[in-house]
């Protein structure tokens, strides 16, 4: 049985459609991430799941029960807000117990529940404090504690880490992942941070302009993006988009490229689906992630879809574990990720290995995936 099922949900504000035909379904214990740029409708969708916003059409079920017309408190959900929304006049313990109190849970159970949650999140020593006396990370924990105390069917997290500094954000990210693995809870999580989405999710829904662009596992979204938007949004540094013509390459197809030094080459493409017959001789957008263009690794050189080209290093950005270099291909900037020690000085040429096995092609007109 699906823990959360969203069917054909629409939401209009006046004449503006902010959610268009949303269909999503996750199983119990799954971690769903709604990701997209600001204004894509992800927060509206979360509010619709919570019941804080009405939907115009469609239905929402939680644990098999239609909750479309139910008020937030009757949906058996808990939410962690971006601003934490801790009740300022109550202590941490009172904050955590408030939901229990409202649900008429006997007083004797409050303490046990507060203690359990506090232990889980390591906030035992903070229970008597008011929110104003807590640091950002501590408030974040208390906000999660408040959600955990009620043990609802579904947890909703609305950009919970966006108010934390970079280091704490990574720590809390791991913490949330651990918590999810330990408790096996069903979580819906909104973020605009694609790294958060990749690291945390079991399933990702990438949204834009009120529509779900793609719904799948992180690896599917990363390796098999359905359109240019998803491909460009997920992954950092972003996927390279190179305009190139489709040509013959032996018995299959390839794309024609020309380096900054004037060397022309054909990069063979993997065979997939219906093939590229109709695209022969036409321009497509080649999508190639930076890590698929690397320094030459001799043991992989003979793989069928690997090609080597001499390219001029235009810019080099060392990140520590590897170095990002910029080269030019078909007169467009292209990023490559290489071993720091393999880098040639800026302005000089070095051989780069192109792994085309995961290359994807997009239709320049519709921006949809075409290979």
């Amino acid at each position, binding site marked *: 049985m699906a823990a959360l099922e969203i069917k054909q949900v629409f939401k209009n504000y006046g004449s503006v459609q902010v959610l268009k035909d949303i269909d999503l379904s996750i199983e119990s214990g799954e971690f769903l991430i709604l990701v997209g740029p600001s204004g894509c409708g992800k927060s509206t969708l979360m509010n619709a799941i919570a019941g804080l916003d009405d939907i115009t059409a469609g239905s929402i079920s939680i644990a098999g029960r239609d909750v479309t017309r139910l008020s937030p*408190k009757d949906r058996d959900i808990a939410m962690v807000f971006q601003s934490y929304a801790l009740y300022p006049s109550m202590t941490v313990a009172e904050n955590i117990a408030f939901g229990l109190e409202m649900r008429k849970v006997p007083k004797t159970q409050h303490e046990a529940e507060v203690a359990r949650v506090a232990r889980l999140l390591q906030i035992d020593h903070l229970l008597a404090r008011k929110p104003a006396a807590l640091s950002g990370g501590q408030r974040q924990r208390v906000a999660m504690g408040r959600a955990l105390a009620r043990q609802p069917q579904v947890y909703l997290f609305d950009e919970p880490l966006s108010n934390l500094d970079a280091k704490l954000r990574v720590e809390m990210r791991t913490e949330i992942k651990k918590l999810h693995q330990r408790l096996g809870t069903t979580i819906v999580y909104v973020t605009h941070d694609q790294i958060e989405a990749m690291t945390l999710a079991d399933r990702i829904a990438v949204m834009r302009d009120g529509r779900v662009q793609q719904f799948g596992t992180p690896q599917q979204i990363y390796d098999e993006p359905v359109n240019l938007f998803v491909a460009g949004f997920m992954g950092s540094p972003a996927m390279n988009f190179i305009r190139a013509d489709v040509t013959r390459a032996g018995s299959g197809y390839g794309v024609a490229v020309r380096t900054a030094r004037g060397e022309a080459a054909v990069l063979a493409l993997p065979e997939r689906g219906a093939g590229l017959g109709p695209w022969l001789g036409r321009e497509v957008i080649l999508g190639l992630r930076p890590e698929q263009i690397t320094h030459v690794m001799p043991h992989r050189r003979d793989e069928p879809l690997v090609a080597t080209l001499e390219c001029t290093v235009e810019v080099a950005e060392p990140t520590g574990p590897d170095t990002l270099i910029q080269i030019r291909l078909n007169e467009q900037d292209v990023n490559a990720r290489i071993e720091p020690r393999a880098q040639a000085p800026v302005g000089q040429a070095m051989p780069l290995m192109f792994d085309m096995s995961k290359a994807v092609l997009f239709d320049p007109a519709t921006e949809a995936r075409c290979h």
Partner: protein
Amino acid sequence: MTETSRLFLGRIALYAALAAWAAFYLAPLAVMLLTSVKTLDDIRTGTLLSWPAALTLEPWLKAWSGACTGIRCEGLAPFMWNSVLITLPAVAISTAIGALNGYVLSKWRFRGSELFFGALLLGCFLPFQVLLIPMAQTLKALGLANTVSGLVLVHVICGLASTTLFFRNYYVGVPDELIRAAKLDGAGFFTIFWRILLPVSTPIIVVCVIWQFTQIWNDFLFGVVYSGLDTQPVTVALNNLVNTSTGVKEYNVDMAAALIAALPTLLVYVLAGKHFVRGLTAGAVKG
């Protein structure tokens, strides 16, 4: 001249100017205080600001319990009590309703609530004189003419525009996510108000109470129009006391009476003034 000594002279000039202004504003109060402890002879022979020849509390006692306000000669004491009976409930009720109004208008918006708020704001700019006759008819119809309850009702109604404005603007600054969180926790309309919002409302409650207390205590118009002989507030009694002319004009008693009538508002402001400024700016910045 060195830099420090120039700064020092600048300071002296600054403080001298400030002191002069302060003296200018305090002068009337000083005159009242000095006059209220002088004997009548002293007043006649001395100047306005001259130090009393002999301190006397007689005028204060007379103003409190002996001076004539029209035909009664019981001083201000009974009317002070009237004012208390009018002011305390009127302040409490108008603040409570204002808080609830502000809560609804900021956190439970409904279709047309902004228009409703706009219309309510008009009430802040309405001259109270236009209300006099319809209000008199209403009070008569309700059987509340010339009663303390009638005056309380008038003050509550006329205060609602400002109290609602205060609370609405304050609550607009309280994050909506707090309300949403409470809704998800299962709290209802009144629980959210009582448990979440009211505990953080102290600054604005103080502002509202000071504002309303000053308005209602100092009111003369409604007091003189809607009160009966036994229900006159202290402001009306003060007017009568000063205007009752039987023989000599007792300036010292008049001054003492005026000070007595003004004391409660002064007291409220001194006790809560710090919160007043804080609360006003808190509302103003996020309005």
